[in-house]
């Protein structure tokens, strides 16, 4: 400060006001900016994605339904996916089961369980159970379940091992590149149609999957759409 006052009030300056080190400031600012921008871009790239934001989304459900107990051949009950999600092979949506589907069994089994209070209420009043949606694609995406499960794409490809989950969470990113990965390489994912709901099924080896998948692609004339119109209407 004193230097500045001297400079302003004093006699003619005898040297440079700025120190020599100031010369590098622009460069420092530039580098700093570049680093900040790079960090922000990298951050957005990493974190502002479905993969980071949505994978692992495991909301608590109003009724603690345990898939690992009910569903799949390895579970206690061994129910097929389609016992409850019975519209999956007919409709674009895979329906969440209606309350009377639960009540088919639970009217006999554990019908008084406190865990089933909401189910009982729904049966009595006709009011819906407010299940929390886990897997959601944007409104402008028209995904169709029926065409996938009828043509050899298993539930597991998008939903993961639901039959191992106590509380269902999102396991795959479900973003557009996730869709396109499969639509461009269908041979890696196709399986025999009767194994679609067998979530634990795997070809013997990756090579076996590729060979079998290629055969399916050729025999079934699989040509998954890659145009906009395939999913956006």
């Amino acid at each position, binding site marked *: 400060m004193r230097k500045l006052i001297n400079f302003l009030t004093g006699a003619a300056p005898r040297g440079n006001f700025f120190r020599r080190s100031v010369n590098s400031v622009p460069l420092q600012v530039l580098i700093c900016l570049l680093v900040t921008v790079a960090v922000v871009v990298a951050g957005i790239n990493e974190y502002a994605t479905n993969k980071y934001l949505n994978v692992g989304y495991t909301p608590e459900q109003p009724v603690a339904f345990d898939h690992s107990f009910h569903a799949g051949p390895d579970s206690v009950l061994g129910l097929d996916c389609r016992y409850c999600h019975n519209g999956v092979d*007919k409709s674009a949506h895979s*329906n969440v089961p*209606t309350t009377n589907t639960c009540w088919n069994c639970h009217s006999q089994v554990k019908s008084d369980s406190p865990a089933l209070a909401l189910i009982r209420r729904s049966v009595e009043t006709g009011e819906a159970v407010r299940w929390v949606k886990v897997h959601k694609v944007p409104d402008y995406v028209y995904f169709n379940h029926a065409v996938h499960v009828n043509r050899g794409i298993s539930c597991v490809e998008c939903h993961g091992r639901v039959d191992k989950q106590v509380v269902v969470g999102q396991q795959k990113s479900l973003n557009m590149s996730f869709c396109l990965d499969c639509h461009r390489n269908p041979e890696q994912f196709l399986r025999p149609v009767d194994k679609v709901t067998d979530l634990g099924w795997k070809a013997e080896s990756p090579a076996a999957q590729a060979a079998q998948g290629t055969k399916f692609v050729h*025999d079934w004339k699989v040509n998954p759409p890659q145009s*906009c119109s395939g999913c956006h209407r």
Partner: protein
Amino acid sequence: MSKQVFNHPAPQPGEPTGPSYWRSLDERNKTPEFRTRAEREFVDGAAAISTVERREFLLLMGASFGLAGLGLAGCREPRNHTLPYSKQPENTIAGVATYYASSFPGELANQALIVETHQHRPTKVEGNPSHAANGTASSKLAQASVLDLYDPERAQASQDAAGAVLSVAAVRELLRKLSAEAKANGGAGLAFLARPSTSPTRARIVAAVKAALPQARFVEYTPVAQNRADAVLGARALPDYAKARRILSLDADFLGSGDGVVEATRAYSAARRADTAAEADAMARLYVVESTFSLTGAAADHRLRAASSHISGLALLFAAEVLAQTGKGGEANALRAKVSGLNVEEKWIKESIADLVLAKGKALIVAGDHLSADAHRAVAIANAALGAAVRYVQAAAPAAGTIADLVAKPAATLVILGGNPAYDAPSDVDFAKAVKAAKQVVRLGYHGPAYDETSALVKEAKGTFVAASHYLESWSDGRTVDGSYVPVQPMIDPLFPTVTELDVLAPFAGLTQEPYALVRETFNRLSKDASDTAFAAWLAEGVLAGTQYPTYADMLMAVPTAAFKAPELSAKSLEVRIVPSVHAGDGMYANNGWLAEAPDPLSKTAWQNVILISPKLAKELDVEPEAMFINKIGALNRNINQLVDGRLIAKVATLTVNGVTLKGSLFIMPGLADYTIGLQLGFGRRVAGRVATRVAERLQGKLIGNGFDVYPFVTSAEPSVRTGVVLALTGESAPIANMQDHWSMEGRDVVREGNAADLKDNQNFAKLGIDGHAPAVYGKDEKMSPADKAILTPRGNSAYEHPNHTVAPNVAVWKGHEDKFPLLQQWGMSIDLNTCTGCNACVTACQAENNIPVVGRDQVLKGRNMQWIRLDRYFFDGRDQAGNDIPTDPQVTFMGVACQHCETAPCETVCPANATVHDDQGLNTMAYNRCIGTRYCANNCPYKVRRFNFLDYNKREDGHYYEGPLGPAKLPKDPADLPQLQKNPDVSVRMRGVMEKCTYCVQRIQEAKIQAKVRAKDSADINVADGAIKVACQQACPAEAIEFGDITDPKSRVSKAKASTRTYGALTYLNTRPRTTYQAKLRNLNPKMPGAILIPLSRKEMAGRESHAPAHGAPSHGAPAADGHGHQK
């Protein structure tokens, strides 16, 4: 590379300078304003922000960005819920549409329908093909009726005299009380006023009411009666348009209005279809005598303009001519002697009737309902002499009494069932008197006292208002045109506590059943098999076989006795012809946005009615200097239909007859009879909802109806035609929401026409015009099959890369196995201009299917209407070198233009966001979520078919568009949200700033493909069968003018249509290669007719342009690069 400039071929010397085809007088005369309008893709100001100043806008934007930072706090998606049913309903799978048979109630005939429901929410109606007469087709009104179900202003509760809400139980209690009172005195002082209905159940209950209460009166009233001839003949005539080969229509708009319009159009169009010389010989021919321009007149091969008040007399002359030519000269002379004061071209009558007589047995004369009783008698006699293709059936006995009787002798208890008599009663009937004189009034209405004149009147008179159900919520039944018994089934539980007409009537007949049981009872009586299975089958099928009206032979064939003296008409004493408007009908559909916005097929106005005047009258009014219609060089003075900033500004005039005056905007309509004025009913509502009233005033709390009310001119005696009308200009002018200059094709010859005879000797007529000498766009690949052209998209001589549909990009597994690759089906469309009648059903069907928003009158004035299908109406008047004659008698062609799905689409190359790209089946797709709204694509589209969401039309109300997020939004619980329930869940609802256009109903294509693959499972049978995809416009089209399907399959219907000699593409010389092609229109000319236009006027006008076609390729023609075609190598 230097920029290549493409110029559309310039006119040659000696070529007419006006456009061959014109949509408006401004276009015809090439006014500077029109040119400015046409050069801009959107109207001047369309892209401007209207109410917010630029600075204010920037300020708001700054603030929004600041706030956006705060909003980023919650990055995760909101928590969404899935609410499954508690108990699974039958036949319901979430996400799969369910279809039920029902019918659209009419006054003369119901329309058999299939209703598409999504989780029991009706979203769309289609024709029911089980009823062969209408196939999959449906009318514009039926299409739009779905929107009425979700009308946010429909009555949501019943009200008693004090305005307190009445429950359904209370309404039933009230009706029981009233019926008990009536029972006590035999129904004395009780009267019902209802609209006509075809329902056998209602007829049965009304009969029961009459039996139970002999003194009660049951009166039917409708402002536009469709069956006036029934009373004259004691029978109803059902013309067989499929069989008739020579049709003479006397002011009967059988293709344009009335309840049988779908069936008539379908049958008539089938008789018009011709692709070979043999078919050309069998083609139907239509003669029309009419005053205003109707769709039937537009379809006519020979059209005679005559005043409606003269046509009743002309009918006698035509009938006399038939008698004379079938050897009954004496009777003919007696008939002729009755007619005086008509100045008519004898030869027209003679030759047209000669043609009809030649086609004896397959000839037909139809007469408009408004013609005199004598005219109908004469036509019946003529039809009998011709052995006409008409069947008579026994008509239902008309209800005794008229609405005038209710006023003359008021009832103590008045029950008003539907209708809106306070608005639409004849002007000589003071309906309010009948209501005020009654001690008790019960009004069943769809709109409550705030939105309906009659309901308001009833409230004023301390009556009870009962909210009515929509037909999609009701049990009822009806009969189609041919009498087939059809159900009206509820698709959804009533959205509000409402009741139906049957609910109200039944207690008075002492019946306690619900409408379902009543309908079941009627079915048991009408069906041979009354079992539950038969009833279920009827509901599933939608039609009960074998219930057509039986033929009836005991018509009253009386010879006309009264003399006919034609009224004198002149510019000082005009005639008005009053018709229901295409937007609001008789006022019943006034609150329906789809109908309001669908342009009138001929005048192209929307949202209002106009005073249609003939060009000759416009010229004659020239006597007053203020009313200068024709300028010195003979062009129409543009003070009348004037384009200012792209809007049509019209003079306002008054019409006066017998001291009653109306005021409205003038619109010059070429083709009108000289001294006839066309008026349309249904506008000028005094108490009505948001669509029927003006927005600006409504926001200030005032209700002013769109357009003007024509009912003051309607009298009991003369409901449709008045004479002695005086027109006076007011000196004011007002804008008309008119679409005729929106998206102009600027006179390029996109329309092709020929005569039926051309199919024999000039098969190339469709290739004439510019395509006759345009560079062959396929170049060396011209000879490829259509399938190869679609799949390989050969480059021809083009320098640019073309899409290739033979490979799957980026799929490694197909590399090296291309031989096994499933070649994809390629979609294409063919539109037959020959059968298209311009009815607008496609426009409305498209709007219903594709969630196209209604934008409102102000936005239409700005050129922002959103309909994907632009049904162009072209006039051409045959002016050759004579210059600017007044276009009094033009020919009309309709051409529906939507996205042409060009294989080499100009829009795709200019999109900076890759939001519009090609798919591998030839669709030009729009990825809405990618679109950033540059509008470059619209600017580069030669067909002008892209529509831009300038504002949030789907999210906000008209009147609040410009307030953006600051304005009231349609909240989910707001009743205004009701229209959202109509939205098709398979189609994105677009937001502001997004471009949209015809998608070829991609959702239907995908659904069909998915269904094929679901069925295929692990097999290779994945192709969609021909006919499995019906796009919305094709399905609705009553003329079956649209074919859609796989163009690589030579056996598909669309390929066959495209193989027709009449097929051509619009603007194909631009090398756009549109997937939509057209089939040229045919006119079936009778060369003996006076004024026969031997070559279609369009061709005549194009002759100049074709003149150098033969020279093409000759050395004198010059190098191709220099001839203005711009096809440089």
